């Protein structure tokens, strides 16, 4: 293999490349540095590709060009045109083709070396591992894409109680073919056996998983693709591949864990879903209307990047006795240069002046309390309206629905602000007992839970930013 004799420069370029990957990845973990992190990683990739192109003895330039042009022609428009809401499936697709590339390279390797004749064991093992994982990733990702894109039905599809034994069988089959190859088998059917059984395995594992768990599954497949890339690197003795692949494998695993935790799911439970367990579908209200949930950290980021946040307290803040936490949150935001006001509705709470008493207890300066008439003009200039345990006083039905018991009551026009975050424990109605359409507004997201706990969680996230 001639590329072993490559000049030190190429290897050094590889080192530079993976250093950029790592540095970029570090950046991607913080909101302030994420954009630059992604850029740096992209530069690293360019350097790695350049270094490879420099490798003495490279040929087949036209074919290479063909592939690159093809890939670019497909990749760029796909990435450019996809809607923001369709991002997750796009990531799934990109991940899938990566896995596919790994599997294909492994297959060709097998063919070129006539079944790894004369190659050391670690080369064949690594290549076969790459083939198996790459293939699982390819097909699994495609199913995930199909489900999210609603080409395939989003609900779990499973063959029932046979699921688990079947999956196991496929895995054993693939591994058996691999063992046969390492033991000296050179028949291409063995290789095809690996590819096919792992393809089926990828399909079978992902099909029974519900749409809500898809992001976690995609992340898992992403980590797997990383591992398969690292295996390819071992086989080809290519440092850049090893490092980049392994970093993705490791960080992807951690990330999968974090995502599952943030969604209150466990990875085994999700994958077990693929083995016949229950993969609960994404919860939505009794009606068809869609409710968007958010998390404390998302709320924290959203607010910390806002210029003006208006807090709308209501009876729920009083019940949760969240006033001190709210004040703390406001202080954190103010220290980040965000302007924070409190919109006090005349009948928020359950007694005249209820909000005043509580906010005064928490030492909120009187100047920050805004009366309804004063603040209603401000909402259109507000980036985030944070509704804390208020309900009726924000209900647009008071304006729009003459049949509603609250029709005619003046309300806080929170729905005029750029986005609304509502903190309450459930979808249950407030004092007047009527549903609130605000919660189904596309600009609204809900942070469910006790107001004090939620606000405290937001405070912690703000501090961590």
């Amino acid at each position, binding site marked *: 293999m001639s590329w072993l004799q490559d000049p030190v420069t190429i290897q050094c370029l590889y080192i530079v490349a993976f250093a950029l990957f790592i540095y970029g990845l570090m950046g991607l973990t913080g909101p302030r540095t994420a*954009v630059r992190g992604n850029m740096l990683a992209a530069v690293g990739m360019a350097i790695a590709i350049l270094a490879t192109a420099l490798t003495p003895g490279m040929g087949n330039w036209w074919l290479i060009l063909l592939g690159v042009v093809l*890939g670019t022609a497909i990749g760029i428009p796909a990435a450019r045109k996809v809607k923001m809401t369709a*991002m997750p499936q796009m990531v799934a697709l990109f991940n899938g083709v990566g896995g596919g590339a790994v599997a294909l390279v492994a297959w060709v390797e097998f063919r*070129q070396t006539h079944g790894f004749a004369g190659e050391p064991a670690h080369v064949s093992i690594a290549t076969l591992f790459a083939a198996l994982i790459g293939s699982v990733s390819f097909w699994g990702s495609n199913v995930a894409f199909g489900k999210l894109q609603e080409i395939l039905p989003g609900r779990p599809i499973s063959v029932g109680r046979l699921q688990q034994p079947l999956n196991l069988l496929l895995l054993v089959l693939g591994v058996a073919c691999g063992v046969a190859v390492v033991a000296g088998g050179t028949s291409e059917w063995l290789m095809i056996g690996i590819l096919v059984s792992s393809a089926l395995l990828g399909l079978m594992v992902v099909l029974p998983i519900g749409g809500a768990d898809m992001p976690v599954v995609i992340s898992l497949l992403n980590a797997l693709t990383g591992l398969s890339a690292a295996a390819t690197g071992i086989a080809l003795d290519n440092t850049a591949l090893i490092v980049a692949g392994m970093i993705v494998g490791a*960080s992807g695993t951690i990330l999968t864990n974090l995502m599952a935790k943030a969604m209150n799911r466990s990875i085994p439970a999700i994958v077990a879903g693929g083995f016949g367990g229950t993969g609960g579908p994404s919860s939505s209200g009794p009606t068809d209307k869609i409710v968007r949930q958010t998390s404390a950290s998302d709320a924290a*980021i959203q607010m910390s990047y806002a210029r003006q946040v208006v807090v709308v307290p209501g009876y729920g803040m009083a019940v949760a006795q969240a006033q001190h936490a709210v004040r703390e949150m406001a202080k954190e935001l103010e220290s980040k240069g965000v302007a924070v006001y409190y919109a006090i509705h005349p009948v928020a709470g359950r007694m005249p002046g209820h909000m005043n008493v509580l906010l005064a207890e928490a030492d909120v300066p009187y100047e920050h309390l805004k009366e309804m008439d004063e603040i209603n003009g401000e909402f259109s200039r507000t980036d985030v309206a944070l509704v804390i345990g208020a309900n009726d006083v924000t209900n647009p039905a008071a304006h729009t629905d003459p049949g509603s018991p609250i029709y005619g009551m003046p309300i806080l026009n929170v729905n005029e602000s750029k986005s609304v975050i509502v903190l309450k424990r459930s979808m249950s109605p407030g004092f007047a007992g009527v549903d609130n359409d605000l919660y189904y507004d596309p600009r609204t997201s809900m942070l469910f839970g006790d107001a004090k706990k939620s606000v405290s969680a937001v405070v912690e996230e703000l501090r961590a930013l």
Partner: protein
Amino acid sequence: MLVQNLAILVLAGFVGFAVISKVPNTLHTPLMSGTNAIHGIVLLGALIVLGLGATGTLDQILLVIAIAFGTINVVGGFLVTDRMLGMFKAKEPRE
């Protein structure tokens, strides 16, 4: 050779573990997408195998596909990540 690659593998694993500690939820998807773009490095594998003289039409076709796949992964990955991160970019100065 192999053992040094192993050392590299282990170290890279630690780097991966250590780098991701506390990530805000909002960054989960961009981060996934970013790492996804990085494993587009498989493109290198396809380039090397084809560039260093893979023969046979089937093999060449497979490799061209692999290169196309890898390119999609790399190019699409970074672009999509960048778009997702748009919300962190559009930050005007605050008064």
